[in-house]
């Protein structure tokens, strides 16, 4: 499975036409969402959208680190979805501070923010934090605002049963 993901990441790098922006920070551009979904197809993933200028997002990041410690079955992908605003070095620093720098991390790298959001979820207007729970069967559940981790636990439990 790991090789499959790695292959996906390699494909993504080729598709996006650029290397990671900073250490392990992937540029999120047009088509990246499809690539990301394909790379993890058939596996339950949690994609968390956040941004540096979003106070509640920054406050919440350590909660995700705690959730990762608690749940080995949580595959967390973080996307800094600031509309082309965040400086990669600062994003990496914030992730490091929260202990999330070793997760799969992306950063919006195309100022056509409407297009990126539309590809991800046409109903999403850019409010953050925003989290998509993507089930083993590909079913997507959107959750706006800071995470209710009890709900996340329940969702992960259901995914386990479905496996």
């Amino acid at each position, binding site marked *: 499975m790991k090789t499959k993901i790695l292959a996906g990441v390699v494909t993504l790098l080729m598709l996006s*036409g*650029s*290397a990671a*922006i900073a250490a392990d920070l992937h*540029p999120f551009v047009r088509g990246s969402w499809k690539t990301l979904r394909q790379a993890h197809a058939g596996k339950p993933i949690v994609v968390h959208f956040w*941004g*540096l*200028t*979003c*106070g*509640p*997002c*920054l406050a919440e990041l350590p909660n995700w680190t705690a959730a990762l410690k608690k749940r080995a079955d949580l595959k967390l992908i973080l996307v800094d979805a*600031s*509309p*082309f*605003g*965040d*400086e*990669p070095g*600062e*994003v990496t*620093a914030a992730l490091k501070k929260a202990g999330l720098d070793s997760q799969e991390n992306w*950063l919006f*790298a*195309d*100022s*056509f*923010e*409407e*297009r990126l*959001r*539309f590809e991800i979820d*046409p*109903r999403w*207007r*850019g*409010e*953050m*934090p*925003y989290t998509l729970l993507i089930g083993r069967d590909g079913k997507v559940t959107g959750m*706006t*605002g*800071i995470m209710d981790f009890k709900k996340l636990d329940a969702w992960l439990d259901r995914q386990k049963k479905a496996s």
Partner: protein
Amino acid sequence: MTIVRMKRAISRGGLLRAALLATTMGFAGAGALAAAPEAPMGGMPMGGMSHGTGGACKDARLGCASTVTPTLAPDGSLWLAFDVDNKVYVTHSTDRGRRFSAPVAITPEKVHLDNGPDARSAIAVDAQGRVFVSYAIFKDNNYNAEVFFSRSTDQGKSFSAPRPLVDNTASQRFAALAVSPNGDLFATWLDKRGVVAAAKKGKTYPGAALAYAWSKDGGAHFTPSRIALDNTCECCRIGVGFNGPDQPVVVFRNVFGGTVRDHALLSFKDANTPGPMHRVAVDNWRLNGCPHQGPSLAISSAGAYHVVWSTQGDARKGLFYARSTDKGAHFSAPMTLGNPDHERSRPYVGAVPGTVWIVWKEFDGENSVVNGRVSHDDGARWSPVRTVARTEDASDHPMLANDGHKIYLSWMTKMEGYRFIPLEDKP
């Protein structure tokens, strides 16, 4: 392909497009006065830029701007504050945006500009031709910001060294500037002094506060800042209008009951007495997060308050318009704007005698368009949706400016550059 190679490829395309544009639009050469629609150059920089267009290039000219804020001065000249590569500039036009003056840098050095999705510089001009500019910079790693202010007393030839607008060091963002009918300068912003004070007592403080200050001497000094209302939302732009010589009306996203981020309005009784808060609509958007989309307000000559906003509430989702004819005490039933299947954002409203325009941005999966509706009876009835402008790439928020007679769309797009488009004003 490496980033560098990709940049070069795009750069060539940009140059080609620039040449084509120059030919088709009949512009030749560039002197101190540059042509308005400047084509983009350069590639896709990787982060660290402002939002809006993302910045097509890094030169000190309007065509490279990420965000552009317009205002029409009492003498009819168009003034723009814009940012390129973390610097703020001002330029103006005396022919409604056909030609612009050489930009003047407000921030000679790069600053860490507040690049939140709803943040931008503010600009206002008074009857004496004094030009006022404010912008916010991030001052620490927690993205607390400080609002700076600069003014010109020589018709925009030079600007004063920027200084903090506010006599408090906590954090300020989303400042708006407006000249009142009696000629005073009103500044309002979202202030986090309450958060700092609460933290010292080991308490929490939801959101921010709506704060304000006045300058009665053309921007030389400001009154001490005051808090108009505690616990507003902290991440959205503010809309400002006037309901009398020195009575501001402010519309903003509030935090109701700790979690509901719906819109509210304060109509001042006099310069320093905010009236009771009125809720624009009960959308019931429960969100422990940042909507990143603030409202817009226009007040007609007949005194109607026109408000547009964005919500994802339980009661309704999308963009909406409502008006109040009793100073905000009651609002009409929200009217939905745009196609629900499209991504709709950034509504803006403007009013002149006989005409009210609403514009917003709508993305259909390929193109972003600025759509609008117009009313000639102060918001009672509205035209069908009209498409005003279009682009195929990144763009800033659409904004409206008016000279008291005519409303114009101000829109910066990455591909086409800056556009200032007169909107129809006859029924």
